[in-house]
């Protein structure tokens, strides 16, 4: 069984530290996505797992075996690169069969394995083409085929979809998920795109500046972000954050004097006078009569809409609250003219409170 374990893994490039002591347990068959802004150390982490980068400090174990000093070929992993890295001088068939050929497997077995991979990825008609004669999506497929042919313990993906156009990306995303359901291997997938992370992951590892910020299922990160970074990184549109100060009446006074009750989930965690940020998603700010409202705590806000973006089943509304542009959602939309004042209902049960200094989430428990 192939769980992957990182124990305090550090990567330094000279004086610069790219990865700061990351620890992570990945279960067998789990689909883990490393996500974060560009330059946060995702690729470096993945490449240390692959053996393409020396591990400065700490330990990487695959299937219970510490692999720090093993070359890539002895780790039984496959990797799909952002630029696909197909061998330009070999046709698709040779690209797919290369690893088995190096392993000196009998030709019949190679042919069999290559054929199976080709069927899974729909490459049968392209077998005699060189990579130069393939489209981006086809190259992507071949790269994935090359990865599955050798039945590795772990798949590593480094931004495999970022060179594709939006439509293909969505399509390949689905194929990768299907592939995982079919082969069931452990997958570690790197992306800077939170949508990919949300849709693919069993578990998301959100990184920033070489640190792990939060690990959890997509819904955990979405519903319980540990700080404002997670709150604004995960989800689209990003979570609205409004500055305020806690009053002794259990309210948050916004910079314009307006007051909103502290959500009960955070009430025990805040202290009077504390500077906070109130966070809420667009889904939880809707004009009265145009939202999904749950019973329970809510606040009503009278806001002027500055811009509306009709998306069909819903319309995204932009409005200013205490000097900050916030976004709300209007279900069963009707046309809205700019400048129109509407009464919005803010569902406080789904709102978050963050400490303004540390940016950490404040929760009662």
């Amino acid at each position, binding site marked *: 069984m192939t769980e992957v374990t990182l124990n305090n893994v550090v990567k330094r490039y000279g004086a610069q530290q790219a990865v700061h002591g990351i620890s992570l347990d990945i279960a067998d068959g789990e689909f883990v996505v490393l996500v974060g802004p560009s330059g946060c150390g995702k690729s470096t982490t993945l490449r240390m797992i*692959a*053996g*393409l980068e020396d591990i400065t400090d700490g330990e990487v174990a695959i299937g219970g075996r510490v692999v720090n000093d093993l*070359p890539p*070929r002895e780790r039984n992993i496959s990797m799909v*690169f952002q630029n696909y890295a197909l*061998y330009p*001088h070999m046709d698709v068939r040779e690209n797919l069969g290369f690893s088995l050929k190096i392993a000196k497997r009998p030709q019949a077995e190679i042919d069999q394995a290559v054929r199976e991979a080709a069927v899974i990825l729909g490459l049968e008609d392209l077998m005699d083409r060189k990579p130069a004669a393939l489209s981006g999506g086809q190259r992507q497929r071949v790269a994935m085929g*090359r990865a599955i042919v*050798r039945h590795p313990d772990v798949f590593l993906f480094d931004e495999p979809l970022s060179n594709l156009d939006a439509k293909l990306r969505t399509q390949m995303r689905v194929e990768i998920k299907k592939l995982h359901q079919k082969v069931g291997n452990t997958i570690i997938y790197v992306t800077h795109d939170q949508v990919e992370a949300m849709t693919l992951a069993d578990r998301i590892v959100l990184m920033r500046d070489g640190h792990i910020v939060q690990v959890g299922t997509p819904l955990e990160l979405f519903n319980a972000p540990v700080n404002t970074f997670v709150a604004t990184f995960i989800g689209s549109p990003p979570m609205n954050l409004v500055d305020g100060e806690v009053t002794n009446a259990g309210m948050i006074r916004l910079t314009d004097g307006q007051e909103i009750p502290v959500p009960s989930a955070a009430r025990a965690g805040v202290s009077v006078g504390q500077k906070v940020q109130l966070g809420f998603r667009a889904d939880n700010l809707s004009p009265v009569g145009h939202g999904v409202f749950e019973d329970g705590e809510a606040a009503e806000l009278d806001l002027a809409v500055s811009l509306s973006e009709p998306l069909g089943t819903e319309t995204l509304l932009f409005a200013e609250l205490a000097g900050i542009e916030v976004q709300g959602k209007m279900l069963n939309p009707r046309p809205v003219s700019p400048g129109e004042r509407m009464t919005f209902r803010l569902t406080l049960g789904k709102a978050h409170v963050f400490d303004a200094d540390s940016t950490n989430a404040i929760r009662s428990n």
Partner: protein
Amino acid sequence: MDRNKTHRNRRRLLKVLHFLGLFLVMAVICIPGLWIVLNSFRPTVEIMAKPPVWNPSFTLDHYRAMFGGAGEGGVPVFSYLWNSIVVSVVSTFVAILIGMSGGYAFARYRFKGKSGYFVGLMLFRAVPGVALSLPLFIVFARLGIIDTHFGLILAYVAMNVPFTIWLTDGFFRQIPKELHEAAEIDGCTRWQAFWRVEFPVARSGIASAAIFAFLTSWNEFALASQLTRSVGSKTMPVGLLDFTAEFTINWGGMCALAVLMILPALILTFIVQKHLIAGLTFGGVKG
């Protein structure tokens, strides 16, 4: 209508000028070679005739004489050819091996003083070969490798290595490093990854570097004229000097030998021209 016509005329004129320019340039490049080939087939009197003879006669006398005995203007053509081949082929092979390793190292590895080494190698290219001939002569004489294939090969390898390093460095640099990484993940050792993936991908570039190195050695005269003495090691370019006597130059014989010298280089270049073009327009390597 009228506009179109003037436009078309202008385009036609430009095209004519374009061809005229090309023709002139090609003439400048080709006429000396043509002159050599033509004169190798003309009697000596015609070569030297003033005013020139415009309808040339054809003779194989120079070739006959060249291959003839020493008394009748013959030279040891086959020895020179053999020397040239041995020296050029071996020095090219060695220079490519060393140059490729060096180029690969410069392209792929980080090490201390990397740019310093690189600039140093290029500076070495700036020193004219002739300037080195006297020091080389003295050192080689001490070592007893004057007038040997080995000595000349050594000199040519040293001369060609910086250039091949520079060329192959450029070619390897254009191959994404993910290619050998993918190969290593696919089960290759670093060594296998190089020979199975990076070398074949850079093959055209390496072939063009080899052609350059070969032609440099094949045509080199200044050093060879100092470092070789006898029939046992003189190369073709030095052999040309056999046709100069104290007061006369046997132009026809010289041209005939020059033609023999050009032929192998021409044939070789022709054979690898596909690679040469691919190598010089490298960059089509996309994964």
